[in-house]
C-alpha cells in the first residue's frame, strides 16, 4: 500500500512497484484513509510518506502497527533524517528512505522491508546511535530496563552511519553478511521494544490501558 498526499508521487511510486512485480493493493492520500483501507486491503508492506495532511506519519505508523502487527512499514521523507524519522522507527517502521533516493535503491529497500530486514540510511543510524546514548545518559527510571547496545552493535551502527555497506562491514569485521544484518536488526528491535514498553507503562499510569483493547 502506498500512502502519500502528493498525487504525482503516489502514482510514480505505485508505477515503479508495479513494474518491479509488486502488487499495489491500495493507495491512500492521508492518515485516516490509510488506517481504514489497511484493514480491508491487508497489505504486507506499507510505503508511507511522513508528511501527511491530517496526522503525522509517526501516528499512522503507530496506528498501523497496533492494528495490524504483521504489516511492515517503510517510511519515506522528503526533508531528511530528523526527529520524526526517529520517532517513526521507534513506533515500528522497519525502514526509512529519502524521497530523492534512486529508483533502484528504492526497490531494494522495498524488497528488504518485505523480507523483514531493516533499511538504514547513515543519517538514521546516527539518529539511532544518538537515541541509545540519550537513553543511557538519562538517569531517570532505573528500573525500566534502559536498552543498551552491545559493543559489537555500536561498532556496526557506527560503520553504517559512516556510509559503509553491509558487505563492506562484513569484510572489515570478518563476519558474514547475515550476521551484520542481524546485529542491525537487533538494534532496531531493542529500540522498538523499549518504545512499546514505555507506551504501555505510560498508558497504565494514566489509566488508558482500556484503549489498547479497542483495536482499530
Amino acid at each position, binding site marked *: 500500500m502506498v500512502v502519500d498526499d502528493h498525487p504525482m508521487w503516489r502514482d510514480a511510486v505505485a508505477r515503479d512497484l508495479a513494474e518491479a512485480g509488486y502488487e499495489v493493493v491500495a493507495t491512500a492520500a492521508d492518515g485516516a484513509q490509510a488506517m481504514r483501507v489497511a484493514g480491508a486491503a491487508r497489505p504486507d508492506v506499507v510505503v508511507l510518506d511522513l508528511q501527511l495532511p491530517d496526522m503525522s506519519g509517526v501516528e499512522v505508523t503507530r496506528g498501523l502497527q497496533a492494528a495490524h502487527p504483521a504489516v511492515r512499514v517503510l517510511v519515506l521523507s522528503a526533508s531528511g533524517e530528523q526527529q520524526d524519522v526517529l520517532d517513526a522507527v521507534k513506533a515500528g517502521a522497519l525502514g526509512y528512505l529519502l524521497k530523492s533516493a534512486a529508483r533502484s535503491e528504492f526497490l531494494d529497500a522495498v524488497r528488504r522491508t518485505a523480507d523483514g530486514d531493516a533499511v538504514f540510511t547513515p543519517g538514521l543510524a546516527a539518529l539511532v546511535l544518538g537515541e541509545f546514548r*540519550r537513553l543511557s545518559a538519562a538517569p531517570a527510571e532505573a528500573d525500566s530496563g534502559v536498552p543498551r547496545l552491545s559493543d559489537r552493535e555500536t561498532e556496526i551502527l*557506527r560503520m553504517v552511519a559512516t556510509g559503509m555497506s553491509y558487505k563492506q562491514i562484513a569484510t572489515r569485521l570478518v563476519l558474514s553478511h547475515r550476521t551484520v544484518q542481524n546485529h542491525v536488526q537487533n538494534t532496531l528491535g531493542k529500540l522498538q521494544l523499549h518504545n512499546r514498553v514505555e507506551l504501555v507503562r505510560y498508558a497504565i499510569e494514566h489509566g488508558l490501558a482500556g484503549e489498547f483493547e479497542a483495536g482499530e
Partner: protein
Amino acid sequence: MTAEVIQCSLVIVTVTAGSAGAQRSSSEPLWRALAAFRFASVGYAAVRLGFIDRAEYSRPDWAWAVIAVMAVWTVVTTIGYTRRGRRSQLLVADLIVTVGLLLSTTGLQHPDATVHGALPVTATWMAGPVLAWAIRYGRRAGAIVGLIVACCDFALLRGAALSTALNGAVLLLLAGWVVGHLARLAAEVQAERQHAIEVEAASRERERLARDIHDSVLQVLALVQRRGAEAGGAAAELGRLAGQQEAALRALMGESWAGSRATGASGDADLRQLVLPAQTDRVTVSVPAQAVVLERTAAAELTAAMRAALDNVRQHCGEQTRAWVLVEDEPDLIRVTIRDDGPGIPDGRLAEAAAAGRFGISHSISGRLRDLGGSATISSIAGEGTEVELRLPRVANIPVAASPGTA
C-alpha cells in the same frame, strides 16, 4: 518624625511584599500591597490610640469608633478595588471618607495635641487614597491627591508643629509620585512582554508554514530527479541539477531544524548547525537528534577541521568521490568521523608528508585538534578510502574551551 519613618517603611515593605506574587494584571501586586499597607496602618492607628497618644484624646470612645470605621472601609476598598468596574467612583469615595475621618480628629483630640507630637487619629492610614489614585491614574494623580490629603493634614495643625507636618506632606507627595511611576512602569513592561509573545507566536507559525512549503519543494525536486534519471539524455542532466538543489535545500532545512535558537547567549553553539551546511549530493552529514552543545570557538575550530578533511577528499580523490560525516555525542567525548570511498592513501605517505614539514592534512587538521585539547587520527587502506576521526574530550562535563593557539 518617627511616624513618618514608620509610614515610609510600611509602604516600602508592603510594596515589596506585594510584588512577590504572580500577576495576572500588571497592577495586581500593587493593589495587594496597598491592601496590606492599609490593614497594617489600621493596626498602627489602633496602637497609637491605645498606647502612645492616649493622653491626647478628649473623646477616646469616638476615636475607637473612627478606628472601627477605618477597618471596615479598608475591607470595603480592598474588595472593591479588585473588581474591575466602578473603580473611579470608589476612588472618589475613598478620598472623601479618608479626608473626612482625618478631619474628624479635630473633634477627638485636645487642642494642643499636635504640639505634643500626636498624629491624627488616622495616623499613616491617610496615605491610602493617595496610593490608590497613583496606582490607577499614575504619577500626577498620585501627587495631586497627596497634596490634597497633605493640605487637610495641615488644616489640623492650628498653628503648631509646622515642620513635622511638612515632613508628612512631602512624604505623601513622594509616595503618590513614586507609586504612580511604578504602576506605569509595570503596565509598560507587561505590554512589551505581550508584544514579544505575539511576535514569537507569529514567527513560530511562519516557521511551520515555511517548513511545509520547503517539504513540497523538496518533493517536486526529488520527483524531477527521478523522472530525469529514467528519461535519460538532457532530462537526466536536469534531474541531476534538481538533485543537487534538493540536497542543498535539505541541508538548509536541516540547519533550521537543528534549531535557530540553539545558539544561546552563553557563548555555546550547537555543532550540528555548523556541520550540516557541508551536506551536498556527494557528502552525507549524519547527526544525533539532540543538540551537540559546545563552546562556540571550539565548535568553530572543529568544523574548520572537518571542512579541511572534506577539502582533502575533493582535492586528492576528485569531485565524484562520496564522503560521509558522522557526529557523535558521547558522555565524555565528541567525535566527528569523516570517511570517503576514494582510493585511499598508501602506507607511509601520510607520515612522509608530515615529516617533510608540509602543511595540509597534518597541520590544519591535527594541529587544530591538538590546540583544542583533542586528537585526530587518520587511517587509510589503499583501495578502501580514508577515515579521519576527530576526537574532542569533554573536561568534567564542561565543553572544552579553545586555547588562543595558531590556526
